[in-house]
């Protein structure tokens, strides 16, 4: 006989052999024994867990001439016909190829006729989710009340694509993913029967790769068997399946520990030289970090699905990382994993990701960070109080005023190429202002900048040319009740001089305190003055340390309006 793949050769023939679905086989057998068969069943579940197989067994079991304990005997004429797919009364229809309304109409026609020699006519529609909407609807009436001799069995991997009206007319069975131990156990039986020797570590690798599907595991098993012959070892499997060597993952964590970026680039080079799949490397790396995380959270290596040799190393390695570090690493890896599918040069993506991981700073726990923020807050609060006290004391205010009126200040400003204006005015009005406004009020730089726009606008109301001039000037300093502004050229300075009384009055109204203006010409003047300060806040250099910390440590992303295109 010709070679048959394991999945076909070992296709179960009785209910008990369907691995990991005992909840379904028991129910079905009981239904047969109590003669409570439904006229329509829907089997759903992931690939390779036994849906089609169960459908075939059920079709045989209810028609079999001499059932054994409600299982088909697989020996009688009817059973053999079904197994070979030539039965007149059991139809296995490929729902994906025969998906139109025409095919369903034909089916409805044939439903009417009684079975030729079986008890029941069984229609198995595989991949039923691919029927068109019209086809489904054409089936509804027949499905609700079929003739007594008809049983429908639908099988699908995508039950969400089946209309609710179909679902409600069927008895639904959800097939489960098969546990790793059960796959291992079954493969061991197969290996034993085929006289193949295989160790448990090797079985574990195959079962894990099967990802909950028996057929996947069996395909991998086939591949391994033909590659290795009858002696299967872990080392050979790794070669046969092109699995990424576990050592590489430990090397990655070592690189992260030692912050060796150069080693990162070399590692990528090696991965490619060895011919490993980058996606598989990333998937493996993700699992590696997950293992570390499990060791960290459970403080033991018991729950890991790895061989004993590695468990110790995980416990050892986990000491060097905190949970937060691992979570951030996992985030980088899984982000890379999803985006690498669409990238044309995956090599660079991997290099960048690895280097990001290696360069990553150790994380600070958010609790600590919050404490730091609290402390900072306290410091700021107390700092303001101290400043406020100093400012609030009347004698110092007076001295400040006095110093303002002292002529040397003026000359020094002149020396700098600047020009102090409003000084005379300021001193003459001091007494009245000090009475009408709280003398303790002092203007901070932030406040001065914040209200500058108001002054500019207000000035523009009465003297239009001033708006232009003021808006092209910018505040460069503010202390002791005097505001220093810079303007682009001499002519602007002239205009400011001419209007100093007006500006000073205006500023007094708006700031609520007496201010003195000093103006200088700034030859390097380029930026838009009004936006000067506000711009600076978003640019990177002036970023608040907390924002910086949020970004670096927690992977926060800044919302930027120009990003949204």
């Amino acid at each position, binding site marked *: 006989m010709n070679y048959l793949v394991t999945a076909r050769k070992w296709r179960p023939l009785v209910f008990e052999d369907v691995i990991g679905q005992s909840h379904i086989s028991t129910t079905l057998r009981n239904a047969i024994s109590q003669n409570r068969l439904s006229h329509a069943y829907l089997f759903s579940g992931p690939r390779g867990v036994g849906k089609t197989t169960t459908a075939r067994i059920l079709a045989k079991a209810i028609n079999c001439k001499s059932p054994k304990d409600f299982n088909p005997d697989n020996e009688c004429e009817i059973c053999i016909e079904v197994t070979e797919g030539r039965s007149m009364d059991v139809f296995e229809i490929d729902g994906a190829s025969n998906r139109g309304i025409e095919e369903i109409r034909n089916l409805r026609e044939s439903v009417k006729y009684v079975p030729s020699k079986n008890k029941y006519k069984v229609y198995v529609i595989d991949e039923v989710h691919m029927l068109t909407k019209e086809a489904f609807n054409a089936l509804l009436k027949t499905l609700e009340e079929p003739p007594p001799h008809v049983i429908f069995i639908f099988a699908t991997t995508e039950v969400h694509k089946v209309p609710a009206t179909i679902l409600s007319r069927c008895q639904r069975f959800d097939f489960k993913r098969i546990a790793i131990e059960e796959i291992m156990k079954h493969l061991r039986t197969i290996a034993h029967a085929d006289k193949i020797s295989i160790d448990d570590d090797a079985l574990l690798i195959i079962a894990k790769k099967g990802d909950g599907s028996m057929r996947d595991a069996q395909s991998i098993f086939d591949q391994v068997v033909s*590659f290795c012959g009858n002696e299967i070892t872990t080392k050979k499997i790794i070669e046969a399946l092109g699995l990424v060597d576990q050592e590489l993952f430990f090397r990655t964590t070592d690189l992260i520990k030692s912050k060796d970026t150069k080693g990162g680039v070399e590692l990528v080079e090696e991965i490619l030289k060895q*011919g490993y799949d980058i996606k598989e490397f990333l998937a493996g790396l993700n699992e590696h970090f997950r293992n570390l995380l499990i060791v960290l959270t459970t403080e033991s290596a018991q729950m890991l699905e790895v061989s004993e040799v590695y468990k110790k190393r995980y416990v050892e390695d986990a000491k060097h990382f905190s949970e937060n570090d691992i979570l951030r690493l996992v985030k980088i890896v899984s982000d890379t994993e999803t985006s690498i599918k669409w990238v*044309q040069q995956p090599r660079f993506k991997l290099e960048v990701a690895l280097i990001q991981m290696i360069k990553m700073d150790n994380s600070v726990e958010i609790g600590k960070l919050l404490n730091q923020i609290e402390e900072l807050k306290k410091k700021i609060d107390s700092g303001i109080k101290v400043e406020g006290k100093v400012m609030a004391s009347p004698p110092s205010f007076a001295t400040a005023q006095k110093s303002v009126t002292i002529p040397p200040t003026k000359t020094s400003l002149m020396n700098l190429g600047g020009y102090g204006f409003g000084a005379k005015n300021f001193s003459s009005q001091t007494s009245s202002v000090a009475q009408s406004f709280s003398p303790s009020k002092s203007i901070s730089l932030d406040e001065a900048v914040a209200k500058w726009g108001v002054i500019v606008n207000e000035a523009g109301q009465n003297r239009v040319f001033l708006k232009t001039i003021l808006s092209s000037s910018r505040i460069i300093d503010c202390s002791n009740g005097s505001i220093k502004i810079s303007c682009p050229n001499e002519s602007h300075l002239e205009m400011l001089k001419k209007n100093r009384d007006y500006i000073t009055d205006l500023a007094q109204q708006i700031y609520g305190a007496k201010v003195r203006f000093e103006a200088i010409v700034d030859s390097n003047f380029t930026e838009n003055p009004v936006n000067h300060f506000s711009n600076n806040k978003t640019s*990177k250099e002036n970023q608040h340390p907390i924002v910086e910390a949020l970004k670096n440590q927690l992977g926060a992303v800044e919302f930027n309006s120009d990003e949204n295109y």
Partner: protein
Amino acid sequence: MSWDIVIGQNRAKRIIQKHLEQNRLPHSLLLYGGDGVGKDAAAIQIAKILNCKTAVTDSCDSCPDCHKVNILQHPNIHLVFPLPVGKSELSDDLPLDKLTSEELSQVYSELAAKAKNPYYEISIERANFIKITSIREIRKKSALSVLSQGRKVIIIFDAEKMNEQSSNALLKTLEEPLGETVLILTTSNKDALLPTIISRCQLIRFEDLKEDEISAALQSRENLDEQQSKIISRLSNGSYTHALQLMQTDLNAKRNQLVDFLAIVLTQNPLKISEEIEKMTKENDRAEIEQLLLLLQVWFRDVHTLSIGSDQVLNVDQKTRLEKFNAIYKNFDIYAVFKEIEKALLLLKKNVYIQLIITVMVIKIRRIILVKN
């Protein structure tokens, strides 16, 4: 010819040969791996071996059967690939029935090119997916009896191009094909296949080709000189098909043009930059722009590699320029630059106005680099 036609891939070859040797070849194989690494070549080779009268693990390449496979005309071998949808095509038409004569002649000339060089990438106008009629035809073909000795082999190139209907229609055949049929699927994007398809096949992964393998193949097959073939193999990303495409463009000129462009972007005023962008987008079509962006990515990747003290650069011949660049521009956020180029590449695929994409990308890169310099 024989297995030598497949460059490198020793692991995959060994697996397949072991299957053949023990007569354990599964009925459905899925060969997956990057673009142009030799999956199609291997699929054709398997088909040849299965139909060669004397062969077990390698073809004799002297019998008439082998010859017929070589020109892709063997009656036992059926090829499936994306085809255009004909005018008023019905669901029971054969896939080629409703195509115009021009389309048909294009199909045949593409097939002839593929026969000549299995690394050739079949591309037919308006052929975006594998039609469900092509899949239905498989079932009919595999039901026919085998002509001469040998086994029926159905090869589905670019299996990821099957749309939802086609993929699902293949499932039953793939699980239990009629007779002795062998189905071989090739794909460069395994993740785009249905999990139900993948689960029914035995997977054989084809790795990206190594640089020396590509450069050796370029030298022996295309008579390229050593220096040139080395550079191309570095930039080919492990794909022989890509290397062949690169061979046809004047790579050196392109790379120089690109670096000049970058210099203008970083040093000149916006007016000059926009002129340059306009020039660039006028001179190059979408595919060429894409290539330029990929080269730009390679360039920045090299900048990055040099800056962290490694000398594994890909632009081997431009090392001095790279070092100069690194000396002038330091400490900028290179990951952000990568992100911008990736974004541009993605938008390019989505048919966004090219000039706009390039302008936005250039402005952002300029900002990212100059903020720190």
